[in-house]
């Protein structure tokens, strides 16, 4: 009945969906997908570890030059990924001190490796981890931290026993956003990672390749999986943080 010539777009989309549900695993690039997950998890965890002290410092600091650090942290939000990727590539190259130091230390270059991707993603996703944390820490009434101090809590203890538990929805958002943003990154990965299957070929690169080659079913299988994973991750965060910490109800 449908010859596919009169209404080309809609049936093609329909066919695509069928293809995905029926035999999506035939096209699904499992290696790229697993690599993406591994990268995103690693980046989310290490970024959280680095962002917690940085965000805490940004919240508490009264240093005049603080705005410079804030601007630097926010830079990847506005910078084209190609710009960031380009400078990271230069920095990782054998002509830069960082690149040479890395080679001297590990014996191989940083560019076009999985570790290189991790390093690049750390920079790229930094604001997505730091900003929710700063917002969460700033929302803590200073009087609570003062109260903890008068109850004998050291600065670290104040952070660990008061600030962190009260900011945990922010911590969760930070981790999830860092994860999701790394899953979705494309430009930086392309610039510093190349496209080596199993090493630096992430899901988003794979999708791009498949579209370029006209393999729409394959692209759809991968794209749809990525979409689902991202949606579930974000829905989880919003669902959990909706319950809040009780900060608002304390007074």
């Amino acid at each position: 009945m449908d010859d596919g010539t009169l209404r080309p777009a809609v049936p093609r989309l329909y066919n695509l969906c069928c293809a995905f549900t029926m035999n999506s695993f035939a096209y699904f690039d499992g290696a790229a997908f697993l690599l993406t997950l591994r990268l995103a998890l690693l980046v989310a965890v290490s970024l959280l570890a680095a962002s917690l002290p940085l965000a805490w410092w940004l919240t508490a600091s009264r240093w005049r030059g603080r705005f410079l650090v804030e601007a630097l942290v926010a830079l990847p939000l506005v910078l084209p990924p190609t710009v960031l990727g380009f400078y990271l590539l230069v920095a990782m190259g054998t002509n830069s001190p960082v690149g040479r130091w890395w080679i001297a230390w590990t014996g191989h270059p940083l560019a076009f490796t999985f570790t290189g991707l991790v390093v690049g993603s750390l920079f790229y996703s930094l604001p997505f981890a730091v900003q929710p944390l700063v917002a969460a820490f700033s929302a803590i009434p200073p009087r609570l931290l003062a109260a903890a101090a008068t109850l004998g809590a050291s600065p670290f203890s104040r952070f660990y026993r008061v600030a962190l538990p009260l900011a945990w929805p922010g911590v969760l958002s930070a981790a999830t956003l860092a994860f999701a943003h790394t899953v979705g990154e494309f430009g930086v990965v392309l610039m510093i990672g190349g496209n080596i299957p199993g090493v630096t070929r992430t899901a988003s690169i794979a999708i791009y390749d498949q579209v370029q080659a006209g393999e729409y079913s394959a692209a759809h299988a991968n794209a749809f999986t990525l979409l689902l994973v991202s949606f579930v991750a974000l829905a989880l965060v919003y669902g959990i943080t909706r319950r809040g910490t009780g900060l608002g109800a304390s007074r």
Partner: protein
Amino acid sequence: MNASDSIISAQVGDGMLSGESAMGLRVDIRRRTQPATRDAQRFELRLAFDAPVGITVLFGASGSGKTTLLDCIAGLRHPDAGVIRVGGEDWFRSEGTRNKAKADAGQPVCLPPERRRVGYLFQDLALFPHLDVAGNVGFSLHGLPKPDRAAKVEAALEQFRIVDLRHRRPAALSGGERQRVAFARALVRSPQVMLLDEPLSALDYRLRSALMDDLLRWSEAHPIPILYVTHSREELLSLGAAVLVMEEGQLVAQGAPHEVLRAPQSHKVAQLAGFENILRGRMEELHPERGTMSVRIAGGPVLLEVPLSGERLSESIGVAIRAGDILLASQPPEGLSARNVLPGKILSLKRRDVRYEVEVEAAPGVVLQVHLTLAAQTAMNLEAGKTVWLVLKTYSCHPVAEQGAR
């Protein structure tokens, strides 16, 4: 600047000589706040006092620097210079930046808040919303072994009648319950000094007196200095402790509560002390032989004879009179010792609880509030528009310094 510095050092020296008890709190500080905006007033905290073991009430209007003082003692803010000493140990000592070069200045001391053993009851309580009652109360006992901590928390919960609430979060507590949790949390680690910032202002009368009893009982069992900040006359009277009156960052009076309240020395304190009538006037005549002076109220015909105070002639002055200290007569009274008898007209008459509040106009723009008992009203049958005579004893008229006149 240098002159004032030397005055401060002299005060510090004097303070050390006076009988400072071993457990007591000594404060002698100054702290200047730079104005946040060009128009804002620069605020200076500058005071010296000794608080012995027991309750000392800090009485003053909001904005008089009471909370800043408590924060300085707790180490949450820092004075520019001075001494804060508790139980013989310096928590803060600094000669200020100007005298840093002095050879004998000694090492400045400024303990961080966590190393000062204070029990600070914040005005907004600052309970930890993520911890339940037991977690809040036991917060300061983190370093103790678990059985010790549990025993101490248990004792504190029992003492403040909050045992049943142990698993509740602050959000699920009533105002009075939160207050008791905050008390227990502040007291559980046996502080060396207790700071209470308007701890009962948010509570109704019954809860307030119950908590006051808790505090008095605790104070008897624990001999430490307790600084109790309030602007409530009732709390001041029911605590019955020594009072320091603060105004604009300085101590303006001290003594027993009834002394401070009976003879307020400034307009603001008179307001706080519950003087319903504070009339503005100008000193007109001094009568040293009678121990009185005449004050003309608001430039009008009303001339009041008030006790002599050290003010200068023609100076602005306030006269504070309690509404309950004024007598009303329906006929011109005779043969009275009272010096001030003023005719007036009743403007309004309102019944409130067990008394009548009467507004009497003694002259255009001079309206006095008078409180009468129900019985007095029944006997006199007053109503609005009636002419009455106001009778004011000289000693019911308290001369107070006008705002900004000092």
